[in-house]
C-alpha cells in the first residue's frame, strides 16, 4: 500500500485532465445556456462556432509565429485570442442579422430556430473545412509543462510523477478568470442585469424599456468570446480537428441540460460533472488500485469500466438519467 503514490497517480491521470476538460466543457456549456436563456433555442451551431473561433486564432497564431512574435513561455495562441474573438463575434452577429433575426421577429417556434441553427452549423462547418481543411492542426508553442514528471520525481523522491501541462494549467486559470468576469458582468453591470431580466421575463423586461436587440447583440458577443476561448483551449490541450468540435456538441449540451438549461451556474457544475464522470469511467484504474490496495487485492486487468471509444456514452447516460428524474436540471433551469 502506498497512498502517496496513489494520490499522485490519481491527480496526474484523473483530477488534472478532468478539471481541464471540465473547464472547457463549462465554457462551451455557458455559451449554449446563454443563447438558450436569451434567444430561447438550442444552438446546434455552437460546436462549429467554437471550431471557427479556434481556427481564426490558429491562423493568427501561425502569422505571429512567422513574424517571430512570442510571449514565451506562454503559448502564442493567447496573443492571437482577441483576433479570434473579434472574427467570431463578427461572424455570429452577421449570422444573427442575416438569419436568426427574421425568425425572432416572426416569433417562430423554438424548434424552427433549432433547424435553422442546424443549417448555420452546416455552413460554418463547410467554411471551417474550406479554410483550414479536415486534418489535425497543432499550434501550441511555449513551455510544454509547468511541472514535468521527471522534475516532480526528483523533487519529491516518489515513484509516480506528476506532470502539469501548460495547456491544462492555462485552461483552468483562464476558465476561472472568464467565469468570474462573466458573473461580475451579469450581476453587477447594467447591461448584465438587463440580460438577466430579459431571460427571466421577456415581457416585463420589454415593458421596463430594455432594448431587446441590444440584449441579443451583447449575448452574441459574449457567446463568441466564450466559444472562441473554449475552442482554443480545447485545441491547445488536445488538438484541433473540425470534426471533434462537432462531436463536442453532445457533452456540451449534456452539461448545459444537467445543470439546467438557461442557468449559468448550472452549466459550470454540469460541465465538471460530465468531465469527471467521463474521465473516471474511461480511465484504467489499475495503477491507482495497485498502489492503494494490499498486494493480494491488486487487479489483474486494466480495471477500466468502459473503453475510451465510448466516452460519449457517459454524457448520454447522464443526460438520460437527468431527463428521466429531473428534467429541469440539477440547478433550477428554464421550464421543461
Amino acid at each position, binding site marked *: 500500500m502506498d497512498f502517496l503514490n496513489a494520490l499522485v497517480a490519481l491527480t496526474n491521470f484523473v483530477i488534472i485532465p478532468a478539471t481541464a476538460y471540465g473547464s472547457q466543457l463549462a465554457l462551451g456549456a455557458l455559451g449554449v445556456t446563454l443563447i438558450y436563456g436569451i434567444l430561447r*433555442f*438550442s444552438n*446546434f451551431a455552437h460546436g462549429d462556432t467554437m471550431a471557427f473561433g479556434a481556427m481564426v486564432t490558429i491562423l493568427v497564431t501561425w502569422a505571429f509565429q512567422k513574424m517571430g512574435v512570442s510571449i514565451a513561455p506562454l503559448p502564442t495562441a493567447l496573443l492571437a485570442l482577441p483576433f479570434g474573438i473579434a472574427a467570431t463575434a463578427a461572424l455570429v452577429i452577421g449570422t444573427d442579422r442575416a*438569419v436568426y433575426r*427574421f425568425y425572432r421577429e416572426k416569433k417562430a*417556434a*423554438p*424548434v*424552427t430556430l*433549432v*433547424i*435553422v441553427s*442546424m*443549417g*448555420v*452549423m*452546416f*455552413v*460554418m*462547418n*463547410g*467554411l471551417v*473545412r*474550406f*479554410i483550414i*481543411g*479536415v486534418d489535425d492542426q497543432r499550434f501550441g508553442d511555449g513551455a510544454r509543462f509547468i511541472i514535468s514528471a521527471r522534475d516532480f520525481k526528483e523533487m519529491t523522491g516518489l515513484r509516480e510523477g506528476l506532470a502539469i501541462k501548460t495547456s491544462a494549467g492555462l485552461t483552468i486559470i483562464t476558465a476561472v478568470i472568464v467565469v468570474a468576469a462573466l458573473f461580475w458582468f451579469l450581476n453587477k453591470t447594467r447591461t448584465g442585469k438587463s440580460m438577466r431580466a430579459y431571460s427571466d421575463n421577456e415581457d416585463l423586461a420589454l415593458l421596463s424599456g430594455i432594448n431587446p436587440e441590444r440584449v441579443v447583440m451583447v449575448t452574441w458577443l459574449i457567446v463568441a468570446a466564450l466559444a472562441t476561448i473554449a475552442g482554443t483551449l480545447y485545441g491547445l490541450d488536445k488538438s484541433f480537428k473540425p470534426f471533434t468540435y*462537432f*462531436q463536442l*456538441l*453532445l457533452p456540451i*449540451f*449534456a452539461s448545459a*441540460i444537467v445543470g439546467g*438549461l438557461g442557468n449559468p451556474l448550472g452549466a459550470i457544475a454540469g460541465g465538471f460533472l460530465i468531465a469527471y464522470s467521463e474521465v473516471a469511467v474511461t480511465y484504467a484504474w489499475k495503477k491507482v488500485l495497485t498502489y492503494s490496495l494490499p498486494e493480494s487485492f491488486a487487479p489483474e*486487468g486494466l480495471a477500466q*469500466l468502459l*473503453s475510451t*471509444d*465510448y466516452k*460519449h*456514452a457517459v*454524457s*448520454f447516460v447522464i*443526460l*438520460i438519467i437527468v*431527463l*428521466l428524474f429531473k*428534467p429541469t436540471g440539477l440547478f433550477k433551469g428554464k421550464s*421543461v
Partner: protein
Amino acid sequence: MTMRGALYFALVALALLGTGLFSSWTVALTILNMGLISAIMSLGVNLQWGYAGLFNVGVAGFVALGGLGAVLMSMSPVGEAWSAGGGRLVLALVIALGTLVGAIALWKRLSRYRVPALVVLLLVGFFAYRAVFDPAVEAIEAVDPSVTGYLGGLGLPVLFGWPFGALLAAGAAWIVGKTALGLRSDYLAIATLGIAEIVVAVLKNEDWLARGVKNVYGVPRPVPYEIDLQNSTRFVEWMQNWGFDPVVGSAVVVKLCYSALFLVVLLALIWMAEMALRSPWGRLMRAIRDNEEAAEAMGKDVTRRHLQIFVLGSAVCGLAGAMMVTLDGQLTPGAYQPLRFTFLIWVMVIVGGSGNNWGAVLGGILIWFFWVQVEPMGQWLMQAITAGMAEDSDLRSHLLDSAAHMRLLTMGLVLLIVLRFSPRGLIPEK
C-alpha cells in the same frame, strides 16, 4: 399530387436521363438507386417532422442500425465463433438485460433505501456482465480475425433483414422517445444526437457483432450477380440481340433489378403513409402538431402519439439503412457520418416540402442528384476561379483541394434559403 409536383418529378427524371445519355447508364442508375433509398429515409423523417413536428437529429444512427439488421439476418453464421464464445456472450447479454430489468423493478417496488440498493445491484450486475463478456469476446474475435472474427448472422435471405433492420431502429427509437418525449422539443433533438453517436461507436468497436471497422463484406444479394449473367449464354445472346455489350448490360440489368425492388418498397410506403395521413389518426397527428394544447384539451394523449410516430419514422429510416447495406453489399460503420446521413436527409425533407410525402420523395432524389453532381461542379468552378492565378500559387492549390468541402457549404445555404423564403418547400402540404 398537383401538376406542379408532376412537373418537378418529370424534371428529375429528365436530369437522370440526361446523365444516362451523356455520361453513362451505370452512373445514372447508381444515382437513382441511392436516390430511392434517400427518398425512403426522407419519408421516415417526414413522418416525424412533417406529421408531428418532432426533430430527429439521429437519422444516421437509425440508418446504421438498419444496416446492422441486414447483416445479422443475411450473413452465414460462424460456427467456430459460436462454439468458442457464443453461449457465454449470450449469457453476458442476458445478465446485462436482467440487471437493467431488475433495476427498474427495484426502483418501482422499493421506497426506502432504493438508491443504495440500485447502486449495489447495478455494480454487481456490471461486474458479473464484464466477467462473462470479456473472455467471450476475446474468444470470438480470435477466430480467424482477418475473415470472420464475429458471430455472423442467421444465414437467411437478405430481404428478411429489411424488416429486422426496421425493428432494431424502432427499438432504439422507443428507448429514446420514452425518455425524451413529453419534455421540451429540443431535448428529443439532443437525445437523438446522442443515440446516433453511440450506435455508430458500438458498430465501430464491437468487433464480435459486425467486425467493427474491419467492415462486413459480401452481404448476399436479392438480385443476380453480374458475373453469373455474363456466364449465362441465354443472357449474352439476349444482350447481343438488342445490340448491347454483355458486360455493361449485366451491370445495368443488376442495377435495374435493384431499382425495381426499391421502387416497390417506396411506393408501398408512400401508399401506406398517404392512407395514414388521410385516416382519423393522420388528422389527429396534424391537429397535435398544429396545436398541442388544444389536442390535449380534447383528451388526446399527445406524448403517446408522438412516441408512436417517432418509432414509426425511425423504423422507416432503419429499413432504408438495411436496403442501403444490401445495395452496397457491405457494412462500413465508419461511413455513417452525421453530416451525410442526418443533415443531408433534413435538407431533402425541407427542400422537398415537409408534411408532404411526395415532396419528401422528390427532395430525396433531387438533393441526392445534386449532392453527387455538386462536387464536379465545385471542381469546375474552382478551376475557373483559379485559372488566372500562377501555376504554383499556394492559394490556388489550396482552393482546388478544398473544392470538396463546397458541398457542405452549398447544402447549408440551400437549407437556410429554402427555410427563409419558401418554408413550405417545392411541393407544399395541402
